[in-house]
């Protein structure tokens, strides 16, 4: 079991109903971790439309979740 903090933003946060949550997961990759969240919250985005960041740096969906890290799911951006 890995203890993780998940961050949701914008439409993803509205859909999840939370901005942050702590989870214990056995997901082997960040993608699998997102897919668990997608089922849990019925999130509207498939992972291919998102980016993922770990501890304030962009990461790869195939990376292994690290104990105690903060994982942010990044929907398509619209700054500017």
């Amino acid at each position, binding site marked *: 079991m890995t203890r993780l903090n998940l*961050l949701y*933003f*914008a*439409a993803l946060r*509205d*859909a999840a109903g939370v901005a942050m949550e702590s989870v214990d997961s056995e997901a082997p990759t960040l993608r699998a971790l997102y897919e668990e969240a997608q089922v849990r919250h019925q999130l*509207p*985005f498939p992972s291919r*439309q998102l980016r993922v*960041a770990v501890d*304030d*740096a*962009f990461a790869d969906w195939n990376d292994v979740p690290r104990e105690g890290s903060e994982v*942010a799911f*990044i*929907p*398509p*951006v*619209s*700054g*500017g």
Partner: protein
Amino acid sequence: MDRFFLSHHPIEVDALRATLGSAHAGAFASFEGWVRDHNEGRPVAGLRYEAHARLAQAEGAKILEEALRTFAIVDARCVHRLGDLGIGDLAVWVGVSAAHRDAAFGACRWIIDTVKARVPIWKHERYMEGDAEWLHPDAGDIG
């Protein structure tokens, strides 16, 4: 002073431009994004920006460093607003000083394009009809 930063308060253009002044710079190009009263044909009442603030700060700083390596410029800055904005408000400012105007224009355009593409900031638009939505380009209308 950070070359990129997020601001919850109105952007002070004069003070920012002054930080770019240099006796070696003959050219200065700037871009400002203003909140428009319409978007894709819909009348807009106002909007709100939110960000993954630490990631946005790190990614924005990286973009400005890339610009300084890539273009023959003297210096550059970019500030993006967060929070509630009204029509006409300044949402984002980019300023670039350079010896010559080619590099100043080129870098200014590249910075705003790249900030819009890569920095985790999201726009929540409120419409005159009363509804509101998050803008997530290329992901359809969600939320």
